[in-house]
């Protein structure tokens, strides 16, 4: 077990621009840290630097308090699970799991015991003699998990381990990984595109964009208290609505609505208003003092228990997540309302959150 600490770690491939310009991040002992971010933002690169598969251009990386910049992968005591499983196709499931122990000269009996235990945990006991080619994707990924487990390493790394699986298996494997982490309590770093995976698995989530760390926090912190528009747009599905508003010192206004606001002095003229789709409700069932807005329905996505209604209001577009099912026709006007306390305010230029009780308290006065 160990914690992992990035101190100003940067990575530059060849002479290109820095892929990771300088990362400061601590992954605590026993934590399940999820790295998310858009494609190409450097998640895999970050993970591979922990593994030692990618060199570190500058900065220091510590695992369990030891600087590991120059430590070869095999001495870092780390196991990694790859998206394409990376099993040894010519070896049986048993041999696949035993390989790492064999090359480290474990005693034969110990190998046998550990592999059987891992196989038991993962429900692979009946498949030990098969080759990876004779297994399904989910089974292969369980073998890869088993192979990582048997060595009982300090750190588990996962690089999008579930993205080759179909939706149902993904849910199932998510459960397997969750249970494993609960049982073993091994420090884990998990890269994914899937925010549901991130929300359900992560002790904490680190959101990366262009190699920069946008925000780190527990899933709820990131959801409820995003630092910037990127995080706001990344967490939650559908993402937070962002409306461009103009601040004239007294109120915020755009095509949709005008909101009086108390403390706008000192803020930029261009601001962004954030509102989660689930915070919009039918105007008819909302308290009278909530702000209202009216738009035309452009698209309705039925999810069964709820609907995603896409509205066009002037030049802006909004998504509302409304409970229950109702028949709408496209083009219909729909009036919605929202709790002003649920609004987020971002700076238009820096995209940073404008916090300090000011924003929310102010709006709620309207």
């Amino acid at each position, binding site marked *: 077990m160990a914690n992992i600490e990035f101190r100003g770690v940067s990575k530059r491939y060849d002479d290109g621009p820095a892929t990771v310009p300088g990362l400061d991040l601590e992954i605590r002992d026993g934590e399940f840290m999820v790295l998310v971010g858009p494609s190409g933002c450097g998640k895999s690169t970050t993970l591979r630097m922990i*593994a*030692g*598969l990618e060199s570190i251009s500058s900065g220091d990386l510590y695992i369990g308090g030891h600087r590991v910049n120059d430590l*070869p*992968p*095999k001495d*870092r005591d*780390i*196991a*990694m699970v*790859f998206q*394409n499983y*990376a*099993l*040894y*196709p*010519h070896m049986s499931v048993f041999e696949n799991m035993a*390989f*790492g122990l064999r*090359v*480290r000269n474990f005693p034969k009996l110990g190998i046998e015991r550990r592999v059987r235990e891992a196989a038991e945990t993962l429900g692979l006991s009946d498949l030990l003699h098969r080759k990876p080619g004779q297994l399904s994707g989910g089974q292969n990924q369980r073998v890869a998990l088993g*192979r990582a487990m048997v*060595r009982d390493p300090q750190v588990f790394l996962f690089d999008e381990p579930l993205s080759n699986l179909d939706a149902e298996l993904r849910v199932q494997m998510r459960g397997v990984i969750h249970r494993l982490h609960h049982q073993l309590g091994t420090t884990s770093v998990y890269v994914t595109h899937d925010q549901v995976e991130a929300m359900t698995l992560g002790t904490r989530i680190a959101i990366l964009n262009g190699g920069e760390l946008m925000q780190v926090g527990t899933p709820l912190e990131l959801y409820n208290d995003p630092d910037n528009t990127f995080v706001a747009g990344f967490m939650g599905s559908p993402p937070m609505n962002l409306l461009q508003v103009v601040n004239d010192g007294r109120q915020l206004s755009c095509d949709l609505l005008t909101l009086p606001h108390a403390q706008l002095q000192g803020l930029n003229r261009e601001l962004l208003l954030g509102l989660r789709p689930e915070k919009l409700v039918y105007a008819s069932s909302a308290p009278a003092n909530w702000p209202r807005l009216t738009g035309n329905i452009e698209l309705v996505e039925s999810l069964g228990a709820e609907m995603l209604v896409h509205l066009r209001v002037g030049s802006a577009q909004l998504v509302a997540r409304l409970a229950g099912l109702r028949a709408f026709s496209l083009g219909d006007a729909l009036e919605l309302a929202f709790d002003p306390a649920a609004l987020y305010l971002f700076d238009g230029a820096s995209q940073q959150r404008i916090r300090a009780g000011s924003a929310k308290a102010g709006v709620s006065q309207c």
Partner: protein
Amino acid sequence: MNTMIERLREGRTAPVKRVLRDIFSWRFALLTFSALIVVYPLLWVVSLAFSGQQSLTLVQLSHDASLRQQLLALIPLPEVWTLDNFRAVLTKQPFLRWIGNSLVVALATTVVGLTLSCTAAYAFSRFRFAGRQRGLTLFLISQMFPAVLMLIPLYVIVVQWLGLGNSWLGLILVYAITALPFCVWMLKGYFDTLPYEIEESALLEGASRWTIFIRIILPLARPAIAVTGLFAFMTAWNEFILASIFMDDESLYTVPVGLRFFVSDYASEWGYFAAGSILVSLPVILLFLSLQRYLVSGLSAGAVKG
């Protein structure tokens, strides 16, 4: 009911029709013709070998032979079938010895060639080092010259400088090294198709590069290694010019060189020559057959990515 029977009947006749149409198509004719061109000389060799004679004419034609007789004479069929030629080649000539020589040289070439090319190809495929691209290009360029061009330089190097004339070692070195560029490209192409994550995973598990090479890469690359090995073997097995220049001692001859002496200025034992040729091709045919299942996958994988 009737319509069903009719449909069944149609179902059965349709393939026959298609087969007939295919047989009478120009494509089929062309293919048959090309196949005949290839097979015809082989038929002559087989007939000669089994005829028991030494002369190239299997059928004695009288001067006033009819057109039909003349045409028939074009079909290579011996008047009697006998194994005499084979018996003579195997007993009266040092043929078995030459086969042994060839086997030693070809097997050694295969082993040396594969050892060198597997390691080199792995390095070219997986490591980034100075001169990597240039090395690959040079290998390619070396393949663009006709082999005869290398004759004199090779002679100078191997015989005059290294003093390895008239020795198997010289031949083995030359064969293994001339086969190297092709083998390296072939194997590199295959190694490139093996996912690198497999090796990274093994690295993390604590395996050394060497362990990975031996226990993971080589077993996975078996098809390509089989094809490449076959190529190296055949390079050495069939090679004639270098062997005939390097080897002076009749007891050290490889089979192709030995065969030549059946047909020279002083002898024209075409029957022995034909029988010998068939015996020589047997090992290669056997190798081909035993490696058949690898050949398709190995060749195509290397070809696509090479």
